[in-house]
């Protein structure tokens, strides 16, 4: 049995303001094995990005309350002090974002930014860091890499900027890469290039990746395993093939059916009725019950416990359990 790289148990995140408190992430559990790619799939506000940020302790400490356990590479992230956190970020775990323009310093050449990260974490000279940056630019297939090291972020195209950010994130060979919608802002022909690049790098370097997306197609391209989030909870997890072929949770099924993909044009699209819930006023039972075609009175009052209807699959739905009994 391989030791898990990351273990998240009963993770909850509350955002606290003077008026109210919102539970953005609610009792999330998962483990990541080395070399595994997991997609967190969900709509806006479902808590997928907040979960990522909690893993790296990037949430504002005064306004957020994190409970539950986060262990990465055997260390308790919750218990880390500032020094340990800084050592972990970038070298054990690193993150790429949707908007590379906001992740880079706009007034420093990209090559120097990567060199700085390498020299801080590895204790090498700036020149050695620049050399490493050049190797990384070649690794992520940036054409004319030597020249591009001296570019400022705004001088790069969207696709190159995203490649440069991947190079920055990989500069210290992290064991776990957190990718928060890294291809969402890219054009279609560039998105597929970046997805294929990430898949290749992941296999070559053997790192684990948690890939946040709202796009089922992206998940199908890159994931080994998918975790579907809704209203702060993981409602279903499973291997990508099983989950896409036979979704068990009604929300996953609805999401698959309503994704526009070569449906007949003279028929209405299948939809999930209603709108995602207001996180400030969540229903007491299953958060999806008000929109669910299969909901009964029990769904409105009871939070469904996780059940395992098939190996490797976990679903939070009362109806799935009823089918098995």
């Amino acid at each position, binding site marked *: 049995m391989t030791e898990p790289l990351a273990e998240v148990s009963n993770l909850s995140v509350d955002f606290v303001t003077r008026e109210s408190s919102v539970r953005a992430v609610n009792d999330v559990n998962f483990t990541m094995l080395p070399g595994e790619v997991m997609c967190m799939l969900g709509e806006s506000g479902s808590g997928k990005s907040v979960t990522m940020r909690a893993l790296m302790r990037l949430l504002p400490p005064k306004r957020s309350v994190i409970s539950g356990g986060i262990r990465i590479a055997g260390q308790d992230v919750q218990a880390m002090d500032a020094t340990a956190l800084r050592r972990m970020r970038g070298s054990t775990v690193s993150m790429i974002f949707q908007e590379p323009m906001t992740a880079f310093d706009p007034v420093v050449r990209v090559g120097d930014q990567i060199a700085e990260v390498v020299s801080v974490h590895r204790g090498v000279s700036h020149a050695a860091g620049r050399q490493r940056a050049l190797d990384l630019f070649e690794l992520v297939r940036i054409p004319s890499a030597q020249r591009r090291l001296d570019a400022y972020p705004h001088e790069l195209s969207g696709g190159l900027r995203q490649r440069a950010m991947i190079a920055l994130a990989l500069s210290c060979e992290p064991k776990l890469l957190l990718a928060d919608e890294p291809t969402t802002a890219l054009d279609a022909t560039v998105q597929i290039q970046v997805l294929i690049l990430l898949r290749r790098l992941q296999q070559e370097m053997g790192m684990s990746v948690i890939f946040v997306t709202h796009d089922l197609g992206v998940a*199908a391209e890159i994931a080994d395993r998918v975790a579907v989030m809704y209203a702060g909870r993981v409602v279903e997890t499973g291997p990508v*093939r099983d989950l896409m072929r036979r979704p068990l949770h009604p929300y996953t099924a609805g999401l698959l059916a309503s994704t526009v993909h070569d449906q007949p044009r003279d028929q209405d699209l299948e939809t999930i009725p209603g709108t995602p819930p207001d996180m400030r006023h969540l229903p007491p039972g299953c958060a999806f019950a008000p929109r669910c075609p299969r909901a009964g009175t029990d769904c409105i009052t009871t939070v469904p416990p996780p059940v395992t209807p098939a190996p490797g699959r976990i679903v939070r739905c009362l109806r799935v359990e009823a089918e098995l009994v």
Partner: protein
Amino acid sequence: MMSATLMELDQRDRGGPQQPLLVVRNLRKHFPIRSGILGRVSAHVRAVDNVSFTVRKGETLGIVGESGCGKSTVARLLMRLINPDAGEQIFDGDAVGEHGGISVADLRRQVQMVFQDSASSLNPRMPVQNSIAFGPIAFGTPRVEAVGQARELLTRVGLNPALFGGRYPHELSGGQKQRINIARALAMQPRMIILDEAVSALDKSVEAQVLNLLQALKRSFNLTYVFISHDLGVVRWISDRVMVMYLGEIVEIGPADTIYTGARHPYTRALLASRPALDPDQRREEAPVSGDPPNPINPPSGCRFHTRCPHAEPVCASRAPSLGAEGEQAHRAACHMQDPASGHSQAIAA
């Protein structure tokens, strides 16, 4: 067809159902780039370059392309939110903004637009029913009547007027706000609606609802749509015809199903092949094209796609391929391989 009967009865229809609702000829917009302390024009962004197309009555024309291809600039030019440098625009037989034609103000009454950002296109300090009634009031409808119509339209877009009419935009979700924007467009009783990435910002589960709504409204209000999106799946579902743009030019235009099953331009084929497969067993092993779209400031010579095209030959860099004239064929592609006389080695036989 019910829509055909409705069309014949439409009082506003001047030229008959055969006359295109919109004809655009050689539309051009180059944005100047100024630099230096004197602000001299140093270059131009060639956002839209000699674009010609027609929109037929009652159809949905989909426009697809990547960022910087000019699709949103086309939308803004059609509404005259920006003025074209050159080109002709004819709305139901009337030249736009010309003597004896239709005025820009009249055009804007008959053509409405829905934008991607549902929040920034609503006044945050105005109850949504007043936002919907604002246009008709400005054009002379009495206030009470206009608000009454606005509440009627709220019902038509699936929102209960008693519950939602008095709300402010911040009290609504993204999908609800976009329904309000659609109702506001409908309030002017337009003949055409330009939807510029109107569903792109919505969650997937809400997007399908709004798409169904758009289709239903099109039938019941006898509308014509220009639907701009980067989402190829959505465009196929909603469009009758599809126009593919690359760096300010049309590269291919034709019936939606023909484009999706038999694309002729290498760029269209690459774009379609770049869609992620929804099946983990059919993952793409290689990207169809490499690199990013070039900068529209100095677009490549000849065929603008030749720098990324797997079939490029010297002729592609030296001479721009022609899309062919409207009316020749329903499905046309601006590629030398489609022209027997181009000299390209893979050109189709005459």
